[in-house]
């Protein structure tokens, strides 16, 4: 139902993972003294620091004394922090519901707008009246011409699921289409089964 940042997460996890792996392998090669023979064999012409040299020498200390270097580090830190914050905010699951649907969008003849949640509340109430259904939530996405309806329906474990889908398809989706005066572009249904056991149609002797 709600959408998460799957592609974003996977892309950045892969990039950061690859960078960390490369940095770790480089650190291992430098630390064990294997970097010099490897680089010598490739003929890149760069000699890595010897393994007995200090990590940061005088050059690093003097560079950190320069104001422009500190400014550059500040800028990089702010960018990294902002990227981290944006990535963190992207983890919040979002419904991404449709903006108010414009049923008539010609200003000369009159504008008609309908809020998506007005429709979804009606849909939820209709679905919750179906046999076996204990809870329903709906999200309407897309536009008035191409509406996408996604439903999450919780039913009990004795519900006839194929029959429930039939009714959602032929009654609920049809009613939404009628309300918007169009054909529903897409109907998505996620079925959940409630943890409570149904006692409907059951007798204990």
């Amino acid at each position, binding site marked *: 139902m709600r*959408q998460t940042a799957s592609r974003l997460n996977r892309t950045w996890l892969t990039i950061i993972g690859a960078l960390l792996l490369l940095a770790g392998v480089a650190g291992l090669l430098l630390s064990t003294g294997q970097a010099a023979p490897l680089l010598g064999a490739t003929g890149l012409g760069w000699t890595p620091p010897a393994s007995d040299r200090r*990590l*940061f020498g005088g050059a690093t200390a003097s560079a950190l004394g320069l104001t422009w270097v500190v400014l550059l580090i500040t800028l990089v830190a702010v960018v990294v922090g902002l990227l981290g914050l944006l990535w963190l905010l992207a983890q919040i699951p979002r419904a991404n519901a449709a903006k108010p649907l414009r049923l008539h969008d010609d200003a000369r003849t009159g504008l008609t707008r309908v809020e998506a949640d007005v429709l979804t509340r009606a849909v939820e109430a209709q679905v919750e009246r179906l046999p076996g259904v204990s809870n329903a939530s709906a999200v309407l*996405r897309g536009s008035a011409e191409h509406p996408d309806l996604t439903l999450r329906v919780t039913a009990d474990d004795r519900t006839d699921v194929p029959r429930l889908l039939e009714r959602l398809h032929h009654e609920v989706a049809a009613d939404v289409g009628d309300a918007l005066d169009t054909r529903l572009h897409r109907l998505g249904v996620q079925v*959940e089964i409630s943890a409570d056991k149904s006692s409907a149609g059951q007798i204990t002797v």
Partner: protein
Amino acid sequence: MSRTDARSRRLRRRPSRTVPATIVAVVLLALGVLTAVVTISRLATGSWPTQVTGPATTVGALTWASSALLTAAVVAVVLGLVLLVAGLKPGGYRSTVLHGPVGDPVEQTDYVISNAAVARLAAGQADLVDGVDKVSASADGRRVRLQLTTSSRQTAEIRDRVVRGVTESLTATGLDPAPRVSATVRTKDL
């Protein structure tokens, strides 16, 4: 790092790796904020804060062959591999496709049932079988595993009836593909 997902996507999805992404995002945010605070303090006062100079001197005094650097490199390799696996491994689906009605009045349909719901359906069906005292179920999209408890000695018969009943029930529900059902039976001591 923005999202462009203001449209419907398939309901049957793989894990979105929210936990590792949240941890790395928090680390990046903390790293950026702490570094910015330290460098802004350096720009404002003209000297590095004492909380930084001590650790920086210690790190600066390390040699490339030091065990601390070796440990840090190993940690970076392990973390890198973990993040790479999290980013590249698809992971299992959390739901199964359901057969359902297509065509008018809808152009496209997408019906799914969550793995937890499949397990509850299976447990509910198994609970109807005579002889079953207690049942628990788990489902992963391809298999449904039932753990049955019975006070009867006819364990093989009960298992067969439960497996047959649950398989028929899940097939009739329209799961695509229909999961393989297996059951283990534990006899309750009387």
